[in-house]
């Protein structure tokens, strides 16, 4: 067997550096993989197995085995080791296990070996295969992030369906991923430095061999210099490609988490960049599951006994916002109504008062919200909120935001609303509330679904009065339909009709959608509200934990004098065969820790106001610096990303200029400026061809493209290889550079130059101009 041939002749020190960085990248993967199997194997043991696998890969490379042989050998050795290990330990253990004591005082070596070995095997196999690959093909070091990316994606992808929470907080995720990116970046940079040198050594070795054998001398120093530069350019382009790729992956992750979370949050809530919030539109999904993550703690002080009863009976609904717009293709979505009325959605930084519409049969309800895993800028409030007061959070708080809301909440008993009527536009001249035609049409748009309207008429056939009709609809759903997390897939894709007429089972969104549309078809202005319900049995010290699976959707119908009144048509009867329970159990450790913190530091809370504004100037408003950072990033992340991208591109373009500026002599300055010029030319599409000498390159630019570069290149070569390079020569160089720039501007349109600046990794086609420059322009060196 012979050693594998490579285009690269890596020095041992360089090879070790690259290999160690490669192992660090693998270590990142292994560390996170280990989270899945934490109960089965300790990280040191797994780390040892991985290091052994990497060492085996190194040995295989030294032995010069072919790739596929190396992989088959690994598989065979792994299977053999496992069976031999289990067999030998089994024999030893069984010899001592019949007696009391025996081997068992050591636990079970057989099981310990099997679980550690088998659990580590996937990570070891990956480490081995990748190590074999990079050792055989060192060029793959430059593509290392691309090799690991699918594995990283696969690992994080599985977070959706699995129940392993890798990171307790998004900051940890950000820090860990940043560390990984840094390692990979270091690897790519190191590869960029080392590989061209190794390629050069290989070329020199080839050339030397060629000279020794009387062949042509291929390794001209200038060619080597350009080769090196273009190698780096290629790697730089790769790095710049990584950024959009990373963004794409992040986007996919976000979508993935979003999907998983939407189905886990009762089909209603989705993750924002850092926390959770409700979606602006709600899908009717064929299946959802329930995540039990704690979202917030809630506490209230009611003004009347009737309000207290609302909480105790489980009817308290904390509204996030309303979905007033309807489109048959899109379902219900958040939109301002024609009166421009949109419920307050954002908490804001300062206390504020909201208008009290003065509806009847409402009383004051003071609520406190302690957000744990929910978008800190979002406002939850019982309808109608009239005072919103964010609290000044204490430092190191576990709560992302704390605030208080005063609402005018309905506590009207049903009998008091019997005569309630909805406003209609034709009644404008008649006594009662006037609404515009447009407003009424907006809130009674049901998409013209006649089958649904017919059902609504059937259900309310023998009742009289608007409120009675609304109640009849609500009762119909409560009596006739089932609650289900698996409403099933509609064969024709119409989930709503499938629910109404076929399966008759669904989760809260189905009920709210259906009732709102049926109410609209009867001329009752209705909309869907989303938020959380409060489970009265979960009270701990008067605080009510609210979990993600308590996300809920219900219906609001507008009545004259009383405003928007809530109806909750979601059935509590489980669909046959679905015996899951909506239990009230909680992670008491988490609740205890939060309550301990809250109860002991409650006196540090204060209403945000002037002081808060002062703090805000120092980036410490409610929720502390991190919360402020979250809020800023959440609002402005596209801008931040764009700025980051522009920064990198600008740095790329400015680096040679900086180098020229700080150079000690004129040679250095010329070198930096010439490199900057090469980048400008490359951005416009004029790149040097492989093996092209600078002068050949300059001549091609002049004759074929009309870019005056021969003089510039001659002066550059003089600066590099001439005996001296005084100031006047430098001034001549500046003049030649100016001519080259002018001619480049002439042949390259502005948009192309901008594109070249913004995306230097794009290989744009160079512009060509009829006619050619004369040879006389240049002059010989």
């Amino acid at each position, binding site marked *: 067997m012979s050693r594998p041939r490579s285009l690269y002749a890596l020095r041992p020190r360089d090879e070790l550096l690259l290999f160690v960085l490669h192992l660090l990248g693998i270590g990142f993967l292994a560390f996170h993989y280990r989270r*899945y*199997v934490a*109960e*089965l194997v300790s990280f040191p043991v797994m780390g040892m197995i991985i290091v052994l696998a990497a060492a085996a890969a190194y040995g295989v490379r030294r032995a010069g085995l072919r790739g596929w042989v190396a992989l088959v050998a690994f598989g065979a050795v792994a299977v053999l080791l496992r069976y031999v290990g*289990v067999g030998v330990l*089994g*024999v030893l*253990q*069984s010899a001592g*296990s*019949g*007696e*009391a*004591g025996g081997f*068992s*005082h050591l*636990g*079970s070596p*057989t*099981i*310990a070996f*099997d*679980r550690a070995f*088998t*659990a580590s095997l996937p990570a070891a196999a990956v480490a081995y295969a990748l190590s074999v690959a990079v050792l055989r093909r060192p060029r793959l070091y430059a593509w290392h992030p691309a090799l690991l990316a699918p594995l990283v994606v696969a690992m994080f992808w599985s977070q959706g*369906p699995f*129940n392993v929470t890798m990171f307790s907080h998004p900051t940890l995720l950000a820090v860990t991923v940043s560390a990984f990116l840094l390692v990979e970046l270091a690897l790519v940079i190191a590869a960029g430095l080392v590989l061209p040198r190794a390629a050069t050594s290989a070329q020199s070795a080839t050339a030397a061999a060629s000279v020794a054998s009387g062949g042509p001398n291929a390794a001209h120093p200038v060619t080597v210099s350009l080769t090196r530069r273009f190698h780096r350019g290629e790697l730089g382009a790769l790095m710049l490609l990584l950024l959009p790729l990373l963004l794409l992956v992040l986007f996919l992750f976000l979508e993935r988490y979003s999907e998983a979370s939407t189905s886990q949050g009762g089909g209603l809530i989705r993750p924002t960049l850092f926390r959770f919030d409700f979606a602006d539109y709600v899908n009717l999904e064929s299946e959802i599951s329930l995540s*039990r993550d704690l979202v917030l703690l809630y*506490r209230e002080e009611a003004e009347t006994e009737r309000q207290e009863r609302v909480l105790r009976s489980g009817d308290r609904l904390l509204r996030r916002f309303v979905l007033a717009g309807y489109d048959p293709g899109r379902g219900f979505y958040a939109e301002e109504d024609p009166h421009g009325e949109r419920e307050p959605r954002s908490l804001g930084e300062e206390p504020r008062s909201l208008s009290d519409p003065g509806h009847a049969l409402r009383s004051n309800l003071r609520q406190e919200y302690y957000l744990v895993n929910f978008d800190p800028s979002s406002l939850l409030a019982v309808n109608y909120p009239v005072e919103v007061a964010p609290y000044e959070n204490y430092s190191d708080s576990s709560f992302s935001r704390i605030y208080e809301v005063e609402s005018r909440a309905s506590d009207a008993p049903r009998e008091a609303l019997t005569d309630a009527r909805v406003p209609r536009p034709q009644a404008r001249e008649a006594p009662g509330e006037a609404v515009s035609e447009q407003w009424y049409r907006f809130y009674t748009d049901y998409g013209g679904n006649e089958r649904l309207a017919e059902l609504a008429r059937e259900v309310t056939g023998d009742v009289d009065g608007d409120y009675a009709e609304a109640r009849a609809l609500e009762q119909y759903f409560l009596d006739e339909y089932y609650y289900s997390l698996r409403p099933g897939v509609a064969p024709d894709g119409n989930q709503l009709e499938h629910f109404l007429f076929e399966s008759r089972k669904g989760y809260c969104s189905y009920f709210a959608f259906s009732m709102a549309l049926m109410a609209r078809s009867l001329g009752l202005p209705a909309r869907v509200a989303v938020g959380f319900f409060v489970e009265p049995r979960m009270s*701990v*010290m*008067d*605080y009510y934990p609210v979990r993600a699976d308590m996300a809920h959707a219900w219906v609001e119908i507008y009545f004259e004098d009383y405003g928007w009144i809530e109806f909750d048509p979601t059935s509590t009867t489980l669909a046959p*065969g679905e*015996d*899951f*329970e909506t*239990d*009230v*159990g*909680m*992670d*008491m*450790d*988490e*609740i*205890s*820790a939060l*309550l*301990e913190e809250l*109860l*002991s530091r*409650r*006196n540090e809370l204060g209403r945000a106001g002037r002081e808060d504004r002062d703090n805000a100037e120092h980036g410490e408003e409610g929720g502390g610096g991190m919360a402020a950072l979250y809020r800023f990033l959440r609002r402005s992340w596209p801008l931040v990303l764009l700025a980051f991208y522009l920064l990198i591109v600008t740095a790329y373009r400015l680096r040679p200029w900086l180098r020229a500026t700080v150079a000690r002599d004129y040679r250095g300055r010329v070198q930096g400026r010439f490199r900057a010029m090469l980048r400008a030319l490359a951005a416009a599409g004029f790149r040097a061809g492989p093996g092209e000498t600078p002068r050949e390159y300059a001549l091609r630019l002049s004759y074929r493209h009309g870019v005056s570069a021969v003089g510039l290149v001659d002066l550059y070569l003089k600066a590099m290889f001439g005996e001296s390079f005084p100031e006047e020569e430098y001034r001549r160089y500046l003049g030649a550079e100016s001519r080259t720039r002018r001619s480049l501007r002439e042949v390259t349109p502005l948009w192309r130059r901008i594109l070249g600046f913004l995306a230097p990794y794009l290989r744009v086609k160079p512009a060509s101009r009829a006619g050619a420059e004369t040879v006389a322009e240049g002059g010989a060196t």
Partner: protein
Amino acid sequence: MNPPVTAQASETTGTTTTGVERPGRETLRSVPGILVLLVLVLSALSAAIVSGQTRADEAEGDADWYAARALEAIEAENYSRAVSLLKEGQEHYPETLRLYSMLGDLYFDEDLYRLALSEYREAERIDPTDFAVLHGAALSLGRLNENEEAVRYLERVLELYPDSPEVTADLGWMYFKTHQLRKGEELLLDAIERYGNERSLTMTLGTIYADMYRYEESREYYERSIESALEDGQDYFAAVAYYNLSLLQKAFYRFNGAMESTDRSLEHARRGTGHLAKGELYEMQMEFRRAHEQYMKAYNLDEETPLAKLDLAALYRTFGRLDEALAYARSVYESEDLHWMFNFGIDERRHRMELHDLLGAIYRGKARVSARTPAGSPTEWLANTVARVQYAVRAWYHEMSFRRIAVDVGQSYQQAGSELDAHWTYFRAHERYRRVAYAHLERARELEIDVIPETEPLYRMHAGELTRDPEAISRAVEAMHPRWERSSIARGLREAALAFREQGRHREADAAAVELYGINPGGLRQHGVDLPVMISTSAVDEAGERRLRRRLADAGFRPVGNGGGTPYTLEIEAYENGRIGYRLLREGRPVRADGLDVGLDGDGGAAAVARGVAAAVFRVE
């Protein structure tokens, strides 16, 4: 499989921790005596303040003032106010024990045991001998499943206050929970001698004897506790004692007695665990509907523990309804609240062990069912394969976790001197490593048949499984009780079918599979056992029939020719309207029959029909 006595969840009434004359052991609202006492003490303090010695505002800042205001807040259920007051009081009077113990009690009442413990520990710093504080800390530790630490606290309390029957009973129970059976026996025998037939002591002693496999003593003490409870009209206590007695009787193969005790238990109080015990007895007889009914009753009654959910998950798993089994098992798995264990003879490790075992079996079953789900297209095949791999990986994870914890549990039994339980648990942990498992099984058999000779066939069956000897399994199955050990018989038939098949003895394998189907139609596919059937079709062309046979073979059926030794015939008919009808006949008598809304067109149609037929034929309702 019939686990030893200790695998059952013996229960205490919790009376060892209730009804005591100390504040804050149980909820203040539910212990009026404690409340009255506190109100009296603190009213006196308040009265002293109001009586004119000093004005209220002058008294503000006094430790008693804080305690009195906090009590008022508690009475008004304004707990956060009470906490603020007590915390404020602690800041001003850091050496006033009462402010800490009151807060500890308040947290304890609200099930915030970690917080309660931290307050009790602060109080203990001030006075390390205070009875209420030390006992409160011990009970908090017990609720937090920190049993060894709880024992240390209780031993300290008993050392300081040796004349406390309540603490004695608590310590006896914690000795049982930590498998220190000899210590528990000595302590309780001594206490019974001192305090007489105190029922909480006799019941705990009965439980300890059950754990020591001393049936007669255990029964005697259970009966003494029942007698005492009935004399005092304590129906709830009697119900719990009857429940524990039924567990004992079941473990010692006194099945009729166990059923009777369960009925008695339910007569005295409708409790969730009573229904669970009854359901388990039905499950042993493979009576799905009756067991399910009992478990659902338990589920509706029991809001505290996940035991009903666990039993439901296990029942669904046994009968092949794996989706439902998974939903219940995962719901328990994801629950972090374990304080319910305090009153049950189970600890966190054993609970986790059983959960992993159950989840591993469910996922393994799902992987096998996925492998027996015919695909009609490459997409379906891919989806099936991905699902199968996913389920297999999860099954492996839970099986390995089960083994890891089982080894720990086995060691803890061994350290406590419970040799039989240790070997039995080691056997379960090593079932995949046959040589090791066999050694532990043999040792467990030697120990158990001395105390429960009826377990002999069960051991022989497991030995046959490990040696892959189908004859040995069959002989063991024949020796089992046809009614009460039907669950074990079903397992034996399954293992015999698989072992016969491995040896290429298909006729015997088919016979075992047929018998198994008669007991539990849901027990075949999830374990990789195929049902032999003769297939007859009508109005289906030859190519269609070939496709259908192939797909049915992929779906868990084993098509055999006439005289193939199976009493089952599967008739499939294509109707003119495109629907498919099927009938499963046993010796000519219909067992299952229905129609399917799928056509038999192409490979996809055949696969869909096979899937539909298999889903119906192997489902248990």
